[in-house]
């Protein structure tokens, strides 16, 4: 059987959605409450890593394929730069060009919310990629290394 026991799998299926929702909350409210793009992104990555540990890599990669993770990773970094470049329209790089809105509202503080979202996309996909690289590719290459050494 791939992955862990039925108990772990059931609990994982139940919990993963809540973890992702909590991560999204941490990201979206980063400019109002403690948290932000990095912490929320790590929480979302943890949800995918939990799925990978419980169900094996095939299920996790069917939810978030490796190629898509690469694209999201690069896209997040690019979006960060583009939001920065948007500030050039009002003056300088990383100037707050968006409307500031009203304090203590969700849609306030201009570019901080989009920047948080970009960072969250970037961090979550890249940490997922690192874990998959360390957990899957490493094992294969490590075994190959030992076999080469024995041969």
């Amino acid at each position: 059987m791939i992955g862990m026991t039925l108990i772990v799998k059931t609990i994982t299926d139940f919990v993963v959605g809540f973890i992702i929702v909590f991560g999204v909350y941490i990201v979206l409210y980063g400019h109002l409450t403690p948290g932000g793009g990095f912490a929320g992104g790590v929480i979302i990555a943890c949800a995918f890593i939990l799925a990978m540990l419980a169900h094996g890599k095939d299920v996790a990669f069917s939810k978030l394929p490796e190629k898509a993770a690469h694209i999201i990773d690069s896209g997040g970094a690019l979006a960060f730069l583009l939001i920065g470049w948007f500030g050039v329209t009002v003056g300088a790089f990383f100037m707050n060009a968006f409307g500031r809105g009203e304090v203590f509202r969700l849609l306030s503080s201009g570019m901080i919310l989009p920047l948080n979202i970009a960072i969250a996309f970037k961090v979550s996909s890249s940490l997922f990629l690192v874990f998959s690289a360390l957990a899957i590719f490493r094992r294969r290459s490590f075994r190959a290394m030992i076999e080469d050494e024995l041969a």
Partner: protein
Amino acid sequence: MENITPQLYALLVFMIVGSVVAIETRNLLSAVISVAAVGFALSVAFLFLGAPDIAITQLVVEVLVLIILIRGTILLDNTAVESHRDTLAVVTSLIFFGLLLGFGAMIFGGRGFPEFGEPVMRVSKVYVHTGLPATYCANIVTAVILDFRAYDTMGEASVLFTSILGAMALLRRDGKRKEEEVVAA
């Protein structure tokens, strides 16, 4: 604000004990778990100090690193480490540390250090006083790292991007070549 020093001292003692255990233990898995315990204690310490942003990040990253390190440790067959003391390395690093302190005192000593416990607050004052009116951001930590210091955050993001790129390049190549070999065979 109530006095939190006893709790902080207890956490610090716990962290020092955990670090010593992590260094001295022979088993790699025990060392990883001790390091994780130190990290969790650090997260609680941040919470006591009134820094929930850093506490959340520390906690979450600690969990992730613990998972990755345990995963990596379990894959190794021989997790017992033989410790050997390298006296030369210790002496060299101590000498270099002393030289660093000496040169630092030479360079910065002339201008005069600020008094202990009274750091130079020129930049922080601007952040605190103009943080809300300039950014309309209720969480001042986010206001600082994404508005005042957005360049800094961009640097962090590029560091993360480059490290992921390097890790994928180093770890992937072997796996891919193996697959191609299997297909070719």
